[in-house]
């Protein structure tokens, strides 16, 4: 009897979980129909299952999760971009920028030519001279943006200007780890 109970026990448990094969299911159902004690054991399992779920639900209901997700998000590290994505974006940006440069350059040359050539030929008036200055200004801007980035102390980060307010003074330096730091402190 004990051996049969030991054999049936796990099967009964699995039957309650809906995890038996159809053949095993029918076997257990036949036993349940014939053995009231077995049916009571199944009732015990279902009651325990229900009570356990309710007790843990009750515990969870007492917890305030309103800020939980935000707390997790705050602990995430800053996002990094994969190398492949960076390479792709670099070429996209370079190509886009190069297209823009070419377009700017071509348009500027054309505009300058429209105004300057006749000017050089000597048949242009005041209005044309002003237009030439405008065009040259644009051309200079295009030239500046087309050049390499201004030389920097730190190739990844450069400080272009610093102003402090109130009683603060600023120290600008690179740490031994290579990081650019803008450190402010109150003047005593």
């Amino acid at each position, binding site marked *: 009897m004990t051996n049969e109970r030991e054999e049936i026990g796990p099967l009964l448990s699995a039957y309650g979980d809906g995890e038996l094969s159809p053949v095993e299911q029918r076997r257990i159902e036949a036993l349940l129909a014939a053995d009231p004690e077995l049916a009571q054991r199944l009732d015990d399992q279902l009651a325990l299952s229900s009570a356990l779920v309710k007790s843990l639900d009750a515990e969870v209901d007492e917890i305030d999760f309103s800020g939980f997700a935000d707390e997790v998000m*705050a602990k995430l590290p*800053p996002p990094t*971009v994969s190398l492949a994505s*960076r390479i792709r*974006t670099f070429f996209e940006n370079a190509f886009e920028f190069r297209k823009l440069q070419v377009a700017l350059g071509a348009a500027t040359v*054309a*505009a300058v030519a429209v105004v300057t050539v006749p000017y050089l030929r000597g048949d242009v008036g005041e209005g044309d001279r002003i237009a030439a200055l405008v065009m040259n200004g644009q051309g200079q801007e295009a030239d500046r943006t087309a050049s390499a980035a201004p030389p920097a102390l730190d190739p990844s980060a450069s400080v272009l200007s610093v102003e402090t*307010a109130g009683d603060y003074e600023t120290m600008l330096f690179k740490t031994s780890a290579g990081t650019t730091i803008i450190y*402010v402190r109150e003047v005593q």
Partner: protein
Amino acid sequence: MTQLLRLFAAVSLLAVILPAQALAAPKATVAIDIVQASKEPGENDPRVAKFRSQFADFNYKSFKLVASRLITVDEKKATTVDLAGGHKLNVTFTKAEPNGRARLKLSVPGVLDTTVSLKRDGSVLVGGPALPSGNGVLFIPVTLVEVK
């Protein structure tokens, strides 16, 4: 008449060039971490470990990560991040620079106004705004994630 036509042609070309620049409308994504540093010894926040080498030159003994923010700013626009201790950080994406760099203006009103140029993944550390309690200062690593 001929001069007017030439002027008109030049202005028309300008009208084509300038909108072409505006079409790109880049955005800069910037990661901002807010770290409280104290001269009192204490438990170190493990999330600050990645910044420790940057703080090594200072005399602060314990660090706590108050918050991490990821902001996206349009070119020529600004956004504000609340720091601790009543301070705020205004971040202006001044302009997109070549090779994915960004020029950013960082200001802590009443304290500091600085313009930096960062390349992708480049960062500067703004440090020093004191906490009202007097127990420490803020360090704010600012990292350019990308310009799109």
